[in-house]
């Protein structure tokens, strides 16, 4: 019976001009988004590889200079977008793409080229995740707001119930018909992605698909329930469209703004001033008058059993610079750690809205699966900083120990080109899927509750319909 009702519902959607239009538009958007996203991703990957290559050439082609000069010359890290960004680019439009790694300083990720079209960035990108999270839900709303109410208004509902169809069967069949419409859109998007993108991660794609299928089940169930409970088709349409607007547009913005208001981040000036103040408490590698520097000098002289710098078999400068770096790293860990905690706290506050809005739970989980969310961005910054520290540490060590005393006592550098060629370029290692999802338990729980709640609502609505019929 359910199958008959299900196929009947599909036929009715396809017979209706509005249904055909909505489905055609949905499929078209799904295909266009998959295609444009894949093509943008391919250009980005090429440009990122070219940028990495250019930085590498600059590093390798440079003449053999002192290790400390090289530490100031530094290296550029260009953020990779990741293969899953074709499905969900997440926060990449609003985070910087380039980090300059150098001695003494931890620089921010800079350069957000889309800012040149800033007034557009108020809106979502037409990418597969937007199509599945926002537009597919809308397709279900537009195709399904009259799924039961119009049957009631036309009197067909009574006819069906008299013929022996139970309310539960009817509701389930209608929900399944709507859901399969969503499933079709998901398959179009994911299928197109598999065809258009070379580098695919099947595990993540399966998770992405599963997530969106689950969300669309929630949407389909809610659409069917509201349509069944509404007295008029117009009321169902108005209510469902209002809910869609609230969930897709208003609540995400409201949650972001209220979080930023209740728990504001420090200003850049204040943050940098605090870091600078702490930095000044430590050793200053470039100030020969610095007392802490002189103290370290005395310690090193004692360690080597000599009385002056000129007698040292190593370059004191390199040791001082490394001490300076280590202190700077502690300061960075303290301040960036606090900032990171603050960012994650804000993120967790926004995450609570997932219980109110399934679209937010889906959006956050989708970014986690794609590796383009906040945790991935922070992980990228963390790995970049570790890369910087390791780079500077090796250079400082070379500066300190890559020397030899000449016969007249002068310190000569023994650094070779091979030493510089032995450095590897930065390579970002994305967090594993399990780890990413492990950091999104609130959203997983919220989505599970939404699935359970929507399914329970289906049962309750069916009971209510049954009770109405009996009375």
């Amino acid at each position, binding site marked *: 019976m359910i199958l008959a009702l299900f196929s009947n519902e599909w036929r009715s959607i396809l017979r209706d001009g*509005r249904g055909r239009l909505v489905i055609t538009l949905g499929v078209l958007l799904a295909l266009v988004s998959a295609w444009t996203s894949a*093509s*943008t*991703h391919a250009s*980005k990957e090429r*440009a*990122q590889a*070219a*940028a990495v290559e*250019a*930085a590498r050439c*600059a590093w390798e082609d440079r003449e053999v200079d002192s290790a400390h000069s090289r530490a100031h010359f530094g290296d*550029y890290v*260009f953020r990779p977008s990741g293969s899953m960004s074709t499905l969900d680019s*997440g*926060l990449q*439009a*609003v985070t910087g*793409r*380039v980090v300059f790694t150098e001695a003494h300083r931890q620089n921010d990720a*800079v350069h957000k*080229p*889309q*800012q*040149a*079209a*800033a*007034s*557009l*960035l*108020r*809106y*979502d*990108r*037409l990418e597969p995740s937007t199509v599945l999270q926002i537009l597919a839900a809308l397709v279900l709303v*537009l195709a399904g*707001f009259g799924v039961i109410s119009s049957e009631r208004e036309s009197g067909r509902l009574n006819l069906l119930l008299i013929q022996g169809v139970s309310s539960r069967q009817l509701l389930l069949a209608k929900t399944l018909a709507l859901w399969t419409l969503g499933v079709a859109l998901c398959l179009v998007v994911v299928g197109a992605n598999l065809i258009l993108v070379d580098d695919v991660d099947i595990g993540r794609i399966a998770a992405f698909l599963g997530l969106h299928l689950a969300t669309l089940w929630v949407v389909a169930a809610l659409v069917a329930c509201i349509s069944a409970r509404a007295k*008029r088709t*117009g009321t*169902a*349409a*108005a209510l469902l469209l209002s809910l869609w*607007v609230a969930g897709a*547009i208003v609540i995400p*913005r409201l*949650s*972001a*703004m209220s979080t*930023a208001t209740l728990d504001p*981040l420090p*200003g*850049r*000036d204040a943050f940098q001033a605090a870091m600078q103040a702490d930095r000044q408490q430590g050793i200053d590698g470039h*100030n020969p*008058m610095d007392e802490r520097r002189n103290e370290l000098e005395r310690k090193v002289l004692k360690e080597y059993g000599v009385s002056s710098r000129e007698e040292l078999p190593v370059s004191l400068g390199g040791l001082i610079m490394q001490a300076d770096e280590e202190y700077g790293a502690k300061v960075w860990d303290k301040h960036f750690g606090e900032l990171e905690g603050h*960012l994650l706290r*804000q993120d967790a506050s*926004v995450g609570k809205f997932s219980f109110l809005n399934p679209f937010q739970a889906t959006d956050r989980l989708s970014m986690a699966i794609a590796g383009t*969310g*906040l945790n991935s961005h922070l992980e990228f910054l963390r790995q970049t900083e570790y890369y910087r520290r390791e780079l500077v540490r090796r250079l400082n060590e070379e500066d300190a120990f890559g020397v030899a005393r000449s016969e007249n006592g002068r310190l000569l550098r023994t650094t070779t080109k091979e030493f510089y060629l032995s450095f590897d370029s930065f390579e970002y290692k994305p967090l594993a899927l399990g780890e990413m999802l492990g950091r999104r338990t609130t959203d997983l729980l919220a989505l599970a509750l939404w699935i359970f709640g929507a399914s329970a609502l289906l049962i309750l609505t069916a009971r209510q319909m049954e009770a109405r019929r009996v009375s």
Partner: protein
Amino acid sequence: MITAALSLEFRNLMRSPLRLLTLVLVLSVGYFVIAQGQKDVSRWQESIDKGIEAQSESLEEARSYFAQGVPGPADRPWVDLRQNRYQDYYASVRLARDPAPLAGMAFASAESGAVTMRMYRFADPMLAQGNKIENPALAAAGGLDLVTVLTLLIPLLILALGVEVGGYERSTGLLPLVRVQTGRDRSWIWARCLAVGLIAAAAGLTLAAIAVTAAGAGLSDALPLCALIIAYVAVWTALLAVIALRARNPSHGAVGLGTAWIVLCVLIPSLGVERSAALAAGDFALDLTVEAREEKGLVYEKEQEELYAAVSERFPALIGKEPEPRSAGVNAVREGLRLINLEERMAEREEHSQSHTTLVKWMNLASPTLAFSHALEELAGRGPEVAQAFRQAMVDGLAKRAELSIAANWRMEPLGLKDFEDLVAASPAVFSRPTPDWKSPLLVLGVWLVALVGLANWLSRRESESQTKTS
């Protein structure tokens, strides 16, 4: 007729809790974001004040050394204010980008350029960051400020208030009655639409009045804001009329209005964002990073005559002031060449951002929502054009300083207080914002309005003709 329609809409508003709630929500969210916007402006101003405070401290410190007749601080004996580079360091004037009077209304703008920049020889205006540390997870939500409220929520208010206009009259058979009583049924529908538009305009203008009062803005800002709001509401009112004249019943009207809102406020903007992502895909700022660093190095490899020729071409006022021997002034010339390179990079960037500017212009034509949000961001002084002009002002300021600095260096004498004060005086401290371009978007809104009114009239005339034929 308009009075009757207006009183009907007011009664409808008072009787319907959902409509009243929508109006209250729009007004209260609007009020809340205005307050947040003002806080943001205060933080912006605070950031500038701190910069100026730091600048004053630096200037006073330098002046005190001149007054004491010492070259610099006792704990940093290598600092010598008679030298060019230390004068440059201490005379690092801040160029401030004061907030526009209505800056608060677009505080969630994605454009996060610097609000103050320190003017010194190593300054890089192209990579300078804004005063806010942003949580990308919140920024990606799209932001909620007065611009969002006016662009997205005011049309929704029109949708909520006018959802039944036309459709209700048709479905209940009231339309023939209206036709008999008034002679023209479409006048009644137009009158109802206008009444809805008036209520929405009143809501929008109330928010505008609060924003203007809170910001203490003058008429020159308030009038364009009001004109834009009225034009935008008029466009949506005309759209309401188009749909109301065709709606067979309230449900039909709801779907029509909902679809129009989604197409204009979600779908078309998302296409624009997708295109901007495609334009930005290949931009990893190599010109500002790796290539800029290479250029700095190349300055040291150029022949002396080549250096002098380039600097003379850029600063003709310096011709004839070259020192003898010329090699003595070569370091200052290198500074000049660095500035020339910076100017070239700036010009290239400007050209590069043209594609985004063109995109935004085209997208403004495609959706009144985009035209309106762009106009409001312009009025708020938050657009990328202002950020670009600020960067340009900074480069111009650096050029003036470079010219002065080279001339002072070529005199081959130790520098004094006068040189220092000249350097400070030559540094522009005030940035003049370019005049906001709100007229072109207003024109776009005007074109939309005329087109929609024309369409509505054509539709109603066609319907009248078909009714005449039927009768």
